[in-house]
């Protein structure tokens, strides 16, 4: 019977291999997970951009936030200034009434819709609300349709 028994040597051998592979597997998985940071020290996605009086009629570029603030009389809209193709910062070209991308030549009309590729997705419009103190609050996590505007009494 002894020869059919699972021998101590075979058992320890298997345990040894499992422990070795387990250690390397675990270390590999842990190192892979390690590469994905849990806390990001990045600018917040929700921020205040002053009052409507800061923005004259038309399209204004907010450099440090990479957004455009569009004012039409007392209506305020905020759109991303990041090209949906590969993330370059768009330029507003007032004489042609459109956004143009310096990198690969994408063009967006004043509704943020692509009128010339290579970009394919429209520009996202961000939700704007008013804080109790009357400041404009932009939330980049909330994408709204182009038609949605914030009316501010001036």
């Amino acid at each position, binding site marked *: 019977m002894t020869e059919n028994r699972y021998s101590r040597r075979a058992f320890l051998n298997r345990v040894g291999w499992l422990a070795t592979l387990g250690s390397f597997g675990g270390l590999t998985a842990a190192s892979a997970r390690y590469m*994905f940071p849990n806390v990001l*020290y990045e600018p917040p996605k929700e921020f205040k951009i002053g009052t409507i009086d800061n923005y004259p009629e038309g399209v204004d570029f907010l450099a440090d936030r990479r957004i455009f603030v569009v004012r039409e009389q007392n209506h305020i809209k905020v759109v991303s200034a990041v090209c949906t*193709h590969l993330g*370059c*910062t768009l330029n507003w070209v007032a004489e042609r009434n459109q956004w143009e991308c310096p*990198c690969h030549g994408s063009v967006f009309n004043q509704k943020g819709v692509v009128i010339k590729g*290579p970009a394919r997705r429209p520009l996202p419009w961000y939700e704007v609300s008013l804080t109790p103190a009357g400041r404009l609050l932009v939330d980049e996590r909330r994408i709204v349709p182009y038609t949605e505007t914030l009316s501010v009494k001036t």
Partner: protein
Amino acid sequence: MKIRNILIRNPIWESIVRKEHRPSEWIQTKTLGLGLINLFLFAILTVTGILLMFYYVPDTEKAYQSLKDLEYVISFGMILRNMHRWSAYLMIVSVFLHFSRAFYMGEYQKPRQFNWVIGMLMLLCVLGMGNTGYFLPWDQKSYWGITILSNVISAVPVIGEQLKYLVLGGTEVGQNILTRAFDMHVKVFPLVLGLLMGIHFWRIRIDDGLAELIPPQGRTTAASVNNPGGNDPQGQTAVGWSDIITRESSKCLLILAIVMGMSLLFNAPLEEVATPSVTPNPAKAPWFFLDLQEMLSWGPPFWWAIVVPGVAVPFLMLIPYLDPGRTGSGQWFHPSRRVQNILFTAFVTVMIGLIVIGKFMRGPGWVFYWPWQPWPSP
């Protein structure tokens, strides 16, 4: 003569060349010696790179400042940075020529298939080093290069966003990607490339030297030539190799002179400090990636930056296993390899053409301009 003997007749060289075939006319005149040029450029890059690292700080606030210090404050900093940049450019060119040479001579044919694969991996390493090196100065080119690259990565199906998060170490271009690029550039890529270089050289020995037209049984070995009578007369050993070593050493000195000359005459470019709100118009990738950027302007990044390179690179890598031809190895443009050579030339011409178009014929908004056409003022 004494010093020459120490240089050439020492155990290191002898252990390398001991069993090597007698160097024929062929090796001296036909292979161009590009491999050794690459090795030497890698040595220049290692030395200058280590020196640059003594001052460079991989911090988004300080990196650009340390570059300015290297240029204007630190003695010979500018020269060392120039040498690092120009020898990197030369290395990319010379790696590419080495790769073309190996193709046009059918060097990848049996039994040397695997060394071609190693070579392709090394080519990818060199491009990876070039790319991560471009991120380090944290100027406009770095910033927008990373931005475009990270968005290309996010076009990978299913795992694109996670992959972008992994590369950037976050959701935005910032400190984490600079740290990661630095780590890859100065540690991971050089280590991997060094390891692959070792395998590459070792495989040459394993694969019976380089491809030659001489049938194997007709070859004379170094030992039988250098040591015909079985004894070793003083000064007679490895005469053929001593010629090659002298030749190649002078070639290395010439390369060094070229790199130094270029570094004295031309300064490595440095753009303005990285500014997220302003994308330079046009924003161009480093020249060796302009073929990819040109293709990116044609359509969705998924097709032009993921699928096309994702098919082309493995295809190039597997050429030795896909091309069943067994003739013409060791000869330039052998007639039996006409189809292969035409296809390869077409591929290379398109790539170089795209780089030239991207470099000289793309203006603001990636609009086509002839090189002599003025760009509209903004």
